[in-house]
Every structure is written in C-alpha cells, then in structure tokens.
C-alpha cells in the first residue's frame, strides 16, 4: 500500500488460527506493515465491519482491505462478501477471497458478488507461503480507495 494509504487496515477473517498466523507472518515478510485485525468467526467480523447497529456507519472513512476465508464456523464467507458489497460504506473495499475451495461455481459466485480477487490456498506449505508472500507484495503496490 502506498504512503497515502498507510492507514489501510487489513481485516483477516480466517477460522484457522494457525493459518491466520502463517498468513500474517508471510505478509509481513513481504514488507507489509499495515495493521492486521484477525477474526476467527463471521459474527465478530461483521460486528467490526458494520458496527453494533449493523449500519456500516462505523466503517465510513476507514481504509479497509478484507482477506476472507469461505469456510467459517458460524456462516459462510459468501454471506459476508454479499453484505460487504451491498453496504454503501464498505462496497469499495477490496475483498480478497483466500480459501481452500477450487469449485468453479463457488469462484464464479464470489466474482458475481463483487469479490476483487479469488485465491485458492495452495495444497502444500511451500506453495502456500509463496502465494501469501506474493499476495503481500501485491498489497504493497495496490491502491485502496478511501471510504466515505
């Protein structure tokens, strides 16, 4: 993220804490130093994104990048994606779907709902670490719009 977007917060919604930690470590290795806010379930992530009242007002003026796993214990990531893209305060925030599923229909559905990037978690760790590092490098150069 460029200097202007230094305040961009990475919201990581990932139910596997080990994965979350490995993702964080590898993003950091790519030189990304933004704040990362991890969530292991959908409910608490939604509260963070849309506030207690669920209006999304709380996200106004925030710079957010959402890293989303589709398999969550309390809901599917697709629901969160739909809510994020439907809310006027969060709809411009880039959403990176990072999940194990490589089902074509699932991928299509995510892009239809407005997902910006869809990444299948590589099967073995080397590839996984590599992919996350590259994602980190990508984050370092991408523009995130400021949210009104």
């Amino acid at each position, binding site marked *: 993220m460029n200097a202007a977007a230094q305040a961009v917060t990475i919201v990581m919604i990932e139910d*596997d804490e080990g994965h979350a930690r490995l993702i964080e470590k590898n993003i950091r290795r790519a030189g990304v130093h933004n704040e990362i806010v991890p969530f292991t379930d959908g409910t608490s992530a939604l509260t963070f994104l849309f506030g207690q009242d669920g209006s999304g007002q709380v996200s106004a003026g925030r710079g957010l990048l959402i890293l989303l796993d589709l398999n969550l214990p309390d809901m599917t990531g697709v629901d969160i994606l739909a809510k994020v893209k439907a809310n006027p305060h969060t709809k411009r925030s880039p959403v990176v779907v990072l999940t194990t599923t490589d089902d074509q229909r699932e991928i299509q559905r995510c892009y239809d709902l407005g997902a910006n990037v869809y990444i299948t978690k590589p099967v073995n*760790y080397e590839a996984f670490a590599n992919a996350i590092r590259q994602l980190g490098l990508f984050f370092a150069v991408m523009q995130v719009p400021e949210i009104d």
Partner: protein
Amino acid sequence: MPITSTAFARTTLALVFAGALALLAIVGASLWLVDRTSENAEALVQGHQFRARTAAILSSMQDAETGQRGFVITRDEQYLEPYEEARARLVSQIAWLQEQTRSRPDERAAIERTGALIDTRLAELEAIIAMVRADRVGEAVALIRTNRGKRTMDALREVLNTQVDAIDLHIAEAIDATRASATALSWAVLVGALAIALFAGASIWLSVRYTRDLVSARQEVQELNFSLEERVADRTAELARANDEIQRFAYIVSHDLRAPLVNVMGFTSELEVCLTQIQQYVERTAEAADPDTLTEVRQAAFEDLPEALGFIRSSTTRMDRLINAILKLSREGRRSLTAERIDMGALLDAAAASVQHQLQAGDGSITVEKPVPNIQSDRLAIEQIFGNLVDNAVKYLDPARPGRIVVRGREEGARLVFEVEDNGRGVAPQDHERIFELFRRSGTQDKPGEGIGLAHVRTLARRLGGDVTLESTLGRGTVFRVILPRRADGFAARPTA
C-alpha cells in the same frame, strides 16, 4: 393350477380327435341304417307289388269266368271278349308268377299250386266254351253244376290269400325294422351329437381357461416389468446418490485434512527458521560456554532437532501427497465427461512420444500397432488412462533387458479392446486385483509413486462404461487390457455437486 402349453395342446388335440371319431361313428351308423332302410323299403315295394299282382290275377280269373258265363247264357261270341282279354293278360301274369319261384324259394309250393289251379280252371272254362260252341249246352250246364269250377276258384283264392298274408307279415316286419332303424338312427345321432358337444365344450372350456391363464400371466409379466423398471430406476438413483456422497465425502475430507496439515508444515518451516537462528547463536557463543553444556546444546541444535523436524517434514509431505491424491481422484470423479470422436492412433502416438526419451536412455522402444479403432468418448479421460498405463509400463521395465512396449487395439462387437503390453518386471498373481486399489503398489518399492495411477485408470475406465484388467507373469511382463464401449452415450451417473 396353470395349464402348460404342451398339456393344453395335447388335451385339445385329443378332444378334437374324439369329436372327429364321434362324427365318424354317426356317419357310419347313418350309412348303415340308411342301407337297411332302403332294403326294407325294397321289401315293402315288392310286397305291395305282390299284393297288386295277386289281386290282378284273381280279377283276370274272374273276368275270364264272367266272359265264359255270358257266352254260355247268350251263346253270343261277343260275350267272350272279356274272357279272351283275361286269358291274354294271364299269360304274362303266369310268367311273372313263375319268376317269383326264383326270388321266393320257400313259397315255391304255393306258387306252383297257384299255377296249377289257374291252369285247371282255365282248362275247365275252355272245355265249357268248346261244349257250348258244339251245341252241347246241356253237357256244359251239367259240368258247371258239378261246382268243380267254384271249388277250384275258392282253392285259388285261398292259396293266393295265404301268400298275401305271408307277404303282409313280411311287410309288417319290414315296417317294424324300418321304424327300429329310424329310432336307432335318432339315438345314434343324438348320442354322437351329445358326445361332440361334450368334446367341443370341454375344448372350449380348456381354451378359455388357457387363454385366461395366458392373459393373467402376461399381465403379471407386464406388472413385473413395470415394477422392475421402477426398481432399477430407484436403485440407479440410490447408487448415484451414494456415489455423489462418497465423492463429496472424499472432497470434504481431503479439504479439511489439508487445512491442519498446512499448519503442521507451515510451523515446521517456522521452527526450521528458528533452528537456524539458534544454531548460529550456538556457534557464536561456543567459546564462552561450559564445555559439557555446550556438547548437549550442540547435539540438540545440530542433531536431535534437525532429525525430529526432518521426520515431521517427511511424514507431513507424504501425508500431503496422499491427501492430494484423494483430492485429485475425487475431482476426477466430479468432472463431467463429454463424448467426442477421438483419433486413437494420434492419441496413442502422443502418449508413446511422451515417454520416448526415457526409453531411449535404456535402449528400449515403444510401438503403436496400427491401425487402431477410433472411439467416441471423453478425450481427457482416455488420455489419462493411456498416459498412466504407458508411464507405468516404462516405470516398471526390467533393467536386465531392453524394454519393449507395444500398444494395440481391436474391435470386439460394440466394445473396443486396447492393450498395453510390456516385457517388464511383471506383477505377482496375488497383486493382480490389489494394484488397482488406491495407495497399493506391487513388487520392490524402488520407484517413486503413491499408488494412485492404476486406481485412477480403473475409476476412469469404469466411468466411461468400461473396465481395465491385467494379465501378467512375474519376471516376464504385463498386458493391461482396457475395454471400452465404442460409443459412450450415457456416462455413468455423474455427481451434480
């Protein structure tokens, strides 16, 4: 009890035969009876004729007498006319009477006596007429008065009556016989008709029962067919569901197993990074430390920890490969197949070309025996089947001799049979089925691999509606035989998820 078709045919035939016999009996009896009736009728006619003739003879005699009497009284020749006529008639009548002696031998005496009496009377009449002509009227009257003529006539009448009586008796007998014959005929016809009706009835009853049996049997068959189709459809749906579930299960299991594995592997990497740092630190602080502690720390940092991490890494790598294999198979099972026309010659050539360089190193060769029949099936699946089989053949060649791999195909009815033959190390008989199972391998485990290839080949072949088998002699070589339908129209139930 149901009637079998042979029993039905036999019984019906027997009944028809019996009916025909009854009909024949009726016809025979009728013919016999008609014959008898006509005999009786003949007798009847003859009897009546006889009566009429005898009456005519008597009347001729009376005419002769009348003529003679008139002449005697009037002496007029004209009165002799009836006499002359009667005499003329009597000539033929007497001739007929004499004939009767032949047909009626037992009446011969009576007939002869009749003839004699007629002669006697006619002679008397002639004598009287002669006397009158000679004007000896007195003599003639005296002769008449003797009543000899009347006695002769009475005797004649009596003898004729006796014969008529005999004839009448004969006629009565004939009538009785005819009546009896008619009655017998009626009975015979009645009994015969009854028998025919009975046989026909039995035959109809049998036919009706047989037909009803047939109809109900056909209905049963139809019902069975219908329920069978239903059952097959049900089972197919069940199987498809079960297959679907297994596929999904495999997919979920492999996905969910992989997530923690990524952690194990990831943190192992992290540990390795940490270990490097520890090792560097140990190296740097070596001189400052107490020698005993140093040895222990060194051992831990350079031997124990790397060994442990090495085992963790190799095991997780293996586990990762296995899970990937399951995932790959499950994906293959989920992939929807599309049939297209495939040039098998080109496809097999490509498969052979991909292993050519491996073979050339070991002086081996691979040939595709042309021509090979073309197939209509899923291209990717066919490519994977033959790719795997050819790879396998190359992988397990015997290093002691140059490898010879031959690929060929032929038609067998609606199916195509392809063979991949090698002269490699072969497969032990007890492993012939086992090597098609997932993660199972045969022989010396000196080659890399997870034991997926053949399981994959079999899964694919079966999904395409065929199968794969092998024939092998340990140490001599192996023939893998892939049997596929020439046209794969409906592929085996494919999961919808």
